[in-house]
């Protein structure tokens, strides 16, 4: 029934086999373009990658003439001499085991919370620090995030991990400084999305950005918002441009996203709506072995995003189709009318060119899993690529005094080794013992060569700076490396604990930069730098009971001050009778009163005398 309506509705669907180069890198003809990439993932998930890119020539930028480039950001960059800037807001975790390799090779994502790194032009370190402070404070206001809390203790200067992405002339690169800061505890939410959308030329009013909605974005299983600003010079020569690329990636749980906004509670469905495994012998009206996860994906664009797409952004490059979906050719996909479909020759993706003013939606109907035309997962979605490296990090040990960190790094490739840089930026109150840094290798190769090739270590200074640890490592094929080190927990000062001290302290994710393979015959995925981040950790420090000593001290001090003082005074005072003690001149109150009255009388008399 549903299928019929759709077919009658979209009868004008014309398949056009046209190859279009989607990945427009470098300088494009237009100054702005946007694209949404949808990718169905296993376990009823859907990856949606939004990409917005605009640029401005340096001459215009210097003249403060902004067209697509956001003025608010441009002025900040000019003020602090930022050559390249990367800002990340992330939430949730990427399930590499089911979802495979990360979008953008992991280069457009950050650790949980907020991450910022930038190349600043400065002559000295002090000047760079000063500019960094200005930058974080300005960005903090612009993005409604606590970026101003990135102070000296959270700032590091990575030595090996980050490389500039833009085309910088060698002269500027010499006196630029790379600074990096993370806020793992920052909760990314709607207030960060609004300023993000405001930077876009179409401001979320039309085009793919009209799909972005805080409710859906922050209900996603994983999401990452990124801003990258870098200079790009055309390889052919010509004027260099400053490019700002804003990306939003999110993995939607289709079941959850499809729930209507007015009724988001996952109440149990009526018994007859349950998807059951009917092959079970006990299957009956009131007994149902659930089989919903094995089911095929069935969604429409307006269902999962909660609204339809309002045409295209009029400013965007008309040659770039705004919506693409990565699904095998065998997957049925329907669209609203007036839409042109371009299929990729590889048969794994297709793109849609949308008429400017019509509303757009996409329908992926249920694929039958049983019966004559039974389809499998392979018919429905592109098999996820295996990532180059799996990384997992957790704490070991227990107690309030010491702990350890264990990172498990697995190279899944059966024949290729992987070389990468592992970077940790740890808070100063986690004092690591570098001599306990050990690696243990498990795998087929089993050779005992040291996997760590180079160590860059900058120890922490209490209350001044955190630990920076960068390791260049090489893992042989099909092996797992266990990287462990121990640390000691510091007792903080009373006032250094945050308001919810017993929660613990968040430790930023470690950043893994996989270096491009030096072998020219390597597959394209290995020719690029790719990134990977572990989850953040929660470090519990010894925490005092804040209320109890306070109560006890106050109560006992009061009691002692009041009661003990008086009693002690009376107990230790030596009492002597009045006639044996020294004479007191004005004997008591009586004398004083008499004295006062006499004085008063004298005055009155004196006054009278004067009058007369």
């Amino acid at each position, binding site marked *: 029934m549903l299928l019929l309506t759709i077919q009658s509705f979209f009868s004008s669907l014309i398949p056009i086999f046209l190859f279009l180069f989607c990945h427009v890198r470098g300088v494009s003809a237009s100054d702005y373009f946007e694209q949404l990439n949808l990718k169905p993932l296993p376990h009823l998930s859907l990856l949606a990658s939004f990409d917005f890119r605009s640029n401005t020539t340096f001459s215009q930028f210097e003249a403060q003439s902004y067209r697509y480039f956001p003025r608010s950001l441009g002025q900040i960059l000019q003020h602090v001499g930022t050559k390249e800037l990367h800002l990340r807001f992330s939430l*949730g*975790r990427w399930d590499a085991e089911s979802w495979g390799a990360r979008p953008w090779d992991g280069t457009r994502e950050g650790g*949980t919370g907020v991450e910022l790194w930038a190349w600043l032009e400065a002559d000295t370190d002090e000047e760079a620090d000063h500019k960094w402070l200005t930058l974080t404070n300005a960005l903090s206001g612009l993005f409604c995030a606590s970026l101003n809390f990135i102070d000296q203790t959270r700032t590091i200067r990575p030595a090996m991990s980050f490389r500039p992405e833009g085309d910088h002339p060698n002269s500027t690169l010499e006196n630029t400084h790379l600074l990096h800061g993370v806020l793992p505890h920052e909760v990314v939410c709607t207030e960060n999305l609004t300023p993000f959308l405001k930077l876009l030329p179409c401001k979320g009013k039309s085009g793919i950005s009209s799909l972005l909605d805080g409710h859906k974005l*922050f*209900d*996603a*299983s994983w999401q990452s918002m990124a801003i990258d600003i870098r200079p790009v010079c055309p390889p052919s020569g010509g004027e260099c441009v400053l490019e700002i690329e804003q990306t939003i990636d999110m993995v939607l749980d289709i079941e*959850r996203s499809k729930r209507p906004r007015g009724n988001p*509670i*996952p*109440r*149990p*469905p*009526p*018994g007859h*709506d349950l998807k*059951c495994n009917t092959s*079970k012998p*006990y*299957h009956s009206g*009131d*007994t*149902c*072995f*659930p*089989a919903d*996860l094995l089911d095929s994906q069935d969604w429409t664009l307006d269902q999962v995003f909660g609204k339809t797409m309002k045409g295209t952004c009029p400013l965007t490059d008309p040659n770039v189709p705004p919506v693409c979906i990565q699904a095998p050719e065998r997957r049925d996909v329907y669209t609203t009318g007036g839409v042109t479909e371009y299929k990729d020759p590889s048969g794994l993706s297709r793109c849609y060119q949308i008429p400017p003013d019509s509303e757009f939606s996409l329908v992926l109907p249920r694929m039958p899993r049983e019966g004559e035309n039974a389809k499998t997962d392979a018919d429905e979605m592109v098999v996820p690529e295996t990532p180059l490296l799996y990384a*997992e990090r*957790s704490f*070991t*040990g*227990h107690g309030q005094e010491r702990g*350890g960190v264990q990172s498990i790094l697995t190279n899944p490739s059966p024949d290729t080794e992987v070389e990468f840089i592992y970077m940790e930026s740890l808070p100063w109150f986690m004092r690591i013992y570098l001599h306990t840094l050990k690696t243990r290798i498990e795998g087929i190769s089993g050779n005992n060569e040291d996997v760590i090739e180079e160590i860059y270590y900058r120890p922490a200074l209490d209350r001044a700076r955190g630990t920076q640890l960068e390791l260049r490592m090489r893992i042989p094929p099909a092996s797992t490396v266990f990287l462990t080190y121990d640390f000691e927990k510091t007792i903080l000062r009373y006032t250094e604990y945050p308001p*919810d*001290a*017993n929660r613990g302290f*968040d430790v930023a994710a470690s950043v893994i930069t996989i270096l491009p393979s030096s072998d020219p015959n390597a597959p394209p995925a290995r020719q690029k730098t790719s990134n990977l981040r572990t*989850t953040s*950790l929660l470090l*519990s420090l010894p925490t005092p*009971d804040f209320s109890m000593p306070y109560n006890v001290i106050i109560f006992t001090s009061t*009691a002692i001050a*009041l*009661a003990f003082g*008086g009693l002690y005074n*009376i107990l*230790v*005072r*030596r*009492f*002597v*009778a*009045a*006639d*044996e*003690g*020294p004479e*007191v001149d004005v004997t*008591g109150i*009586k004398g004083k009163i008499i004295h006062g009255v006499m004085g008063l009388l004298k005055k009155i008399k004196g006054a009278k005398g004067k009058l007369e």
Partner: protein
Amino acid sequence: MPNVQSFSALRARSYVIRLPLFTRVIIVVMVAFWLAGLQSVWDLQQWGALIPEELGIRTMYRINTFPLIHLNFFHAFLNILALTPLLERFETEFGTLTSLALFFGPLTTIPAFIYVFLERMVLRGNTPVMGASIWVFLLLGMEAIRTYKMNPHLVIGTHHVPTWITPLVMVLVVEALMPSSSLIGHLCGVGTGYLFGLGYLKFTAPPEKALRWIEGRLNLLGRLPHYVSVDQKTYGRFGVLPTSTSNSGTTPLESSTKAPSTNTRRAMPRLLSTALLLRRDPRLLKLPPYLSLLCIIVGVVWLFMLPLDNYSRRTYISENALLPGQVHTYFGGSDQNVFRAYRHEVDALKDKSNSEINDELENIFKGVGLKVGRQNYTYHSAGNTYAGENVYAILQAPRGDATEALVLVAAWKNVKDEFNRNGLALALALIRYFKRWSLWSKDIILVVPPDSTTGTQAWADAYHDAHDSSQVASLPIKSGALQGAIAIDYPQEGRFESVHIVYDGVNGQLPNLDLINAVANIASGQMGMGTSLQEMWRHSDKYNDRLKTMLRGMLNQGLGYAVGPHSSFIPYHVDAITIQPVGQGWHDEMGLGRLVEGTFRSLNNLLEHLHQSFFFYLLMHKDRFVSIGTYLPSAMLIAANFTIMAIFLWIKSGRRVAAIVPADGAKESQEKQQDEPAAAQAPTTAVERDMFLPLALVVGSQFLGAVPLFIFNHTPSNLLGPAFATFSILNLLLPHLVSASGLLATFTPQQYDLARSFSLLLLGMFLSTLATLNFSLAFLVGLLASPLTFARPWPGNPLARYAYEALLALVAPPTTAVLAAVAAGTGSSGLEGLGGLEGLGGLGDALKQAAFAWDVWGVYTPVIVWGVWWPAWLVGAVVVLGRPREGKEKMS
């Protein structure tokens, strides 16, 4: 006046002996009135109190009686304590007759009339007053005026505070600190005191001539002891004039800095001599055994007072973030269909092997979309091998970042080895339901161990990397810090009536009280289920049931073994409980599911680790508990009894036995000598302590404790019973063997004292430390070891010796174990003889359990029994059998 520094017992005694007559009479009268007020037939307080409305011509006696009558013991005691020195001073100054006349005349009536006037005319109230505090403040007021005359100001910084306001400050302090004290009454007293001190009331005193006449006619001075004559009256204290009255020119500050230095110089030798005197006072040395006994009695009585309303508290939710029962729970409806299907799946696996079960469970977990891990473990204990494989699934919080996690445990079998059929099916249905929510801030881990005793232990150990990797495998996947764990134990079929919360952890550690309260709150407030604790299925919330619940809790805590699958989490500071449905009622599985859902929603709210509420408590009802501050003194007193005795024995061993002077004859001479230096009073009685042999005995027995500890934890389980029987008999014979062997033939009484002292010192030290870790264990061991306090050699009395030895044999650690087993058997079967035999049979199992607890759970109770209790018992038993050699100690 004696100050704090130069306080000495002798002086205090002589002070009391020299109290003048009127003061004595007043004290006696007050005590008599207090005693008279104890009976309930006649309301003394109503008769004698100063009640403004009641005051008429016929009830004028109240004006004189009210200071003598008190509200209760503390009121009387404190007032007497405060009044005595002041009244004594007054009397020695003015004479007994004057005091009598004044205190039954103007000094009582004037403040009383002022009070009645104020209360009736001004305030229009009718507050009855009684007690001697009015005199106390009156006298304080007088003293203050006197001080003021001599020393008008107290200089604090640059402020001159007149000294006469001290009593007023005192009045305010007393008003603030003492409940129901009368401010106006006290002020009336102080006011009258001021008037008297200033001399305005001197006219009310009887004329001196008349007093002399009376005195002379009646010969009062000769007839009455402690009578203070009119002529005898003194000025200043004790007739001692101030040493330096010429300090009028110096400022108060100067004089105050000068005074202490001279004071201390004078006080130090005096202090030393009085301390020496005190040490040699024979009466003092008789005190400690009684003090020890008192400690034991008070400690036990204290414990039995706890269930009373006044000593226990109602439970409350301390962590506001928990918000128990504030959310709607939606588990139900078609989820029941799923539950039934999972129950069929679980039923089908009933007789499969551990790994087959886990294979199937892994499939179910993966079907729901969870990450699955498996873990193998093998434990060896008492010759048995316990192997198994845990399977667990992690539901990753949809928007979380693996920093925190909650645990749901559904063991395949519960602690009683019953098939946890419904519990596991419910946990599977719940985790599938939880997957639909996006609100989880923490990961949820469902752990399915093959049994409740080893599996969770292996899992919790490996999660915190505290495992021995040769026995327990590491976990392949992990999540963040565990914030709480709930175990479902639901083997029973059909509907249930209430839930039973099991909360004891390994080694008597307890989960945060907030967790228990939250579950009890959700169960009763939202689900309408009852909650029971410690297998008290029917609880009347009366004293008996509360006591029973508390004692059961203490027994579990004292033994320190794991009572459920949750127990293994608690040592890692993960708060955990087991929920068991019990009884026959109308709640179904879905209700239990909603209870777990509500609990998880509450825990999910937590921003911080559970830390607000108590970790040390005794629960006696689902909403009554005692916190550590209230119950700890009980065990501490029992532990202190050993320490007191140890110190006493140490002091005693340093004195010659013969030096204990006869009490009667020396009395008079002592009184004469009391002001002379102590050294001259008595010949030196210190003796050298011969410590080597007693120390060797105590240390040897401590080391010997390692032998039973090793035997009972390393013997194969089939030999445990015989080994225990052999050890028990050997243990009873050991003291006799030691004493018969002649090892101790050279022991003098002093050496016996020293051995006891060392042994008791260790015992007291260990137990008081243990009381802070495991209160119940410290209390139980302390109570069972309390006869050791009084174990001493009975050289001349074989009957007493063997009787005491028999008593000690009864409280020996192995005998206690046997008796406990018999009692448990009797209690469970109900048949006297048969149950006892069954209990003995169960002893072997209990020993196997103990070895298992030691090897797997790391329970330290055996160390306490064999390393603390048993060595002390051994020394005690040897001492009782000892026949000290009468020898002469070396003089120092």
